[in-house]
């Protein structure tokens, strides 16, 4: 309908209707109870009875991801960047393409939709590339993320009991847990799609080697950050209306990004902190992104500082409430409490982290020189990936576990 009509006002009306319908569903499932509870608390304080009960609906898995994909498509059609898909089957496949349905990458219509109309033949090269990416994804998820989760979960579940070093360690572990959980899923999704001949966008680019927060967001959850750039930040005016407005737009975009992650004040604070940090960076002038090949003291220091800032913000992301986040921050600075020493996490998690770091370090600073996993020789790469499979079998967590981003 958007495409068919010539009148701009009608186009805008249809777009608005589509956005309201899509975000309306998301709001009812994900945000209604949060807003309602907040109003309830406020009214209680004012001694006013608030009669609206919570809906307590079960959240459809991946609703934030496929809603954003659907809204992105509608806006692209409105902007004339893609033609409206007339075949319902292709459209449904675009929204519910199984590898990336529940946790992304959030695909763009002009990238993915045309691929459904192409004829795909089985290709051994795709099979090889897909298997490699999936094995690396499983390694990230099972060896690093799930192992570190076994340390993070009990510590963040009982913050009052643990000492500062333990909470600090758990927070650092969480930074790697969430990265490997989410990037692991993305790799598995991209690898699965690749085996079937589909190309999905890259979602992570070694984010903890970023030298500033702006760059971090160019490397972390790329499909979401570019979505917010194209459909929130730029429509708000982007950087076209002066410095102050640019900073305001940036801050608003990150607040929205925060609330996208979940209906909780912790996510709002997390998004807000990232917004503030980027506004501060912008205030210090133009941000230069590091060239991936430069390794010197200055870049190491910047990487360390950026990682530290990001890790502090993860406290809000991980804590079950704002109060818990502040308890964690306060307790990191104290020595009282029980230390949590878990040999399995330190040994197995440490091994996983070492392999992860080695690969990412060489890919970042010496691209093409870590020739074991990236080798063009099939025998060498076959042995290298079988080594990863054996590591997964030896020290991965092979029980049933979920991906963190499934909840979003």
């Amino acid at each position: 309908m958007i495409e068919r009509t010539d009148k701009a006002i009608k186009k805008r009306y249809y777009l608005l209707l589509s956005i309201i319908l899509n975000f309306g569903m998301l709001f009812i499932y994900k945000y209604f109870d949060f807003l309602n509870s907040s109003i309830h608390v406020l009214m209680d304080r004012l001694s006013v009875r608030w009669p609206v009960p919570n809906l307590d609906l079960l959240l459809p898995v991946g609703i934030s991801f496929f809603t954003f994909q659907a809204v992105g498509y509608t806006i692209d059609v409105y902007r004339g960047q893609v033609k409206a898909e007339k075949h319902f089957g292709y459209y449904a496949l675009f929204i519910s393409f199984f590898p990336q349905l529940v946790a992304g990458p959030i695909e763009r219509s002009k990238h993915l939709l045309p691929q459904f109309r192409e004829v795909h033949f089985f290709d051994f090269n795709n099979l090889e590339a897909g298997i490699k990416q999936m094995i690396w994804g499983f390694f990230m998820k099972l060896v690093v993320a799930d192992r570190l989760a076994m340390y993070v979960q009990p510590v963040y579940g009982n913050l009052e009991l643990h000492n500062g070093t333990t909470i600090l360690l758990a927070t650092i572990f969480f930074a790697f847990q969430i990265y490997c959980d989410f990037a692991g899923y993305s790799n598995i999704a991209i690898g699965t799609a690749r085996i079937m001949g589909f190309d999905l966008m890259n979602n992570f680019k070694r984010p903890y080697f970023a030298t500033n927060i702006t760059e971090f967001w160019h490397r972390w959850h790329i499909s979401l950050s570019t979505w917010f750039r194209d459909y929130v930040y730029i429509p708000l005016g982007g950087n076209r209306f002066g410095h102050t407005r640019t900073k305001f737009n940036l801050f608003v975009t990150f607040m929205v990004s925060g609330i996208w992650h979940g209906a909780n004040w912790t996510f709002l604070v997390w998004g807000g902190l990232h917004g503030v940090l980027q506004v501060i960076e912008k205030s210090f002038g133009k941000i230069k992104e590091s060239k991936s090949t430069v390794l010197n003291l200055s870049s190491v220091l910047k990487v360390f500082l950026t990682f530290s800032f990001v890790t502090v913000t993860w406290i809000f992301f991980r804590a079950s409430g704002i109060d818990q986040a502040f308890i964690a921050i306060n307790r990191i600075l104290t020595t009282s409490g029980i230390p949590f020493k878990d040999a399995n996490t330190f040994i197995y998690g440490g091994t996983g982290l070492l392999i992860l770091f080695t690969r990412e370090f060489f890919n970042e600073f010496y691209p093409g020189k870590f020739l074991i996993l990236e080798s063009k020789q099939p025998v060498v790469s076959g042995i290298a990936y079988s080594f990863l499979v054996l590591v997964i079998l030896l020290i991965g967590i092979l029980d049933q576990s979920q991906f963190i981003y499934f909840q979003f």
Partner: protein
Amino acid sequence: MVKNSINKPVIFIAVLIIMTILGDTLIGNVLNSLYFSDASIKNERLLAYKQSQKDIIIFGSSRAEAHFDPMIISQITGMSCYNMGFSGQNIYFHKAMLESVLEEYSPKAIVLELLDIDFVKTDAIHDKEKLSVLLPLYAANKHAKQAIQLRGRTEKYKNLSSIYPFNSAVYAILRNNYYPFVNNYNGYIPIHNKWEYAIDSTSDSKSKIDEFKVKAIYDFIEKAQNRNCKVLITVSPYYMIRRDSLFNEISKRIRTRFDLEVFSLSQDRRFLDRRDLFADPMHLNTEGAKQFSEIISAKILKLVATK
């Protein structure tokens, strides 16, 4: 050109499969022999059923592990004792361990320290998933194998891998063989600290009875009684005010079915008024365990003396 582009991925996949199978078989077999080596049997508490033909065997979770001191029990009863309590485990694990013991011999007395996770519904992660500790015994012990299969239908396929049963056990295997974790207390793991906080209260009103677990408790008692073992079901002290309606329900069922009294010191004043006997609200410390073991020893003596 086309041929070359097909060859490379085919070689990669072939090498990947062959090396994975070879590596899995080789590493799995090395781990298997290390796990069942003499040093491991001496140091691995899971293998206690193979080496300790003791008169009294204690089963239960961390509360059993930390509350029953076999030295004290042996001193008072004059019978040898081993504590097979295992932190975080529930009745499925205890039943598999009891069956493994009964495969070897019949102890004089079996003590089961009952915890609510033994009969209420819990998340999978606190339930059957915990049985992964039995994985190394999958091929060697049919009772452990049965328990592991409770984890899901995929377990039999996962266990086609030779490494999988030893998943996350490499450190323990190497430690047991080269840096032994010596437990001189016959399985008892004492906790030394003292609890310093005020008493709390709890209720099991939100929990539901898991009938599969209850069936496992019945099987546990029946199997022990069928082998002429005296059975004592205990609930050791808590440092918390508990309203245990489900505990009472289970105790009643056991009494009715087996004419067996559950010996509960859950709310016993000798402990409930003594914060200094606890390491935390769930666990007695060494002094608490000493006093509790003395009480239990008298109870066991009485039990063994009955016909």
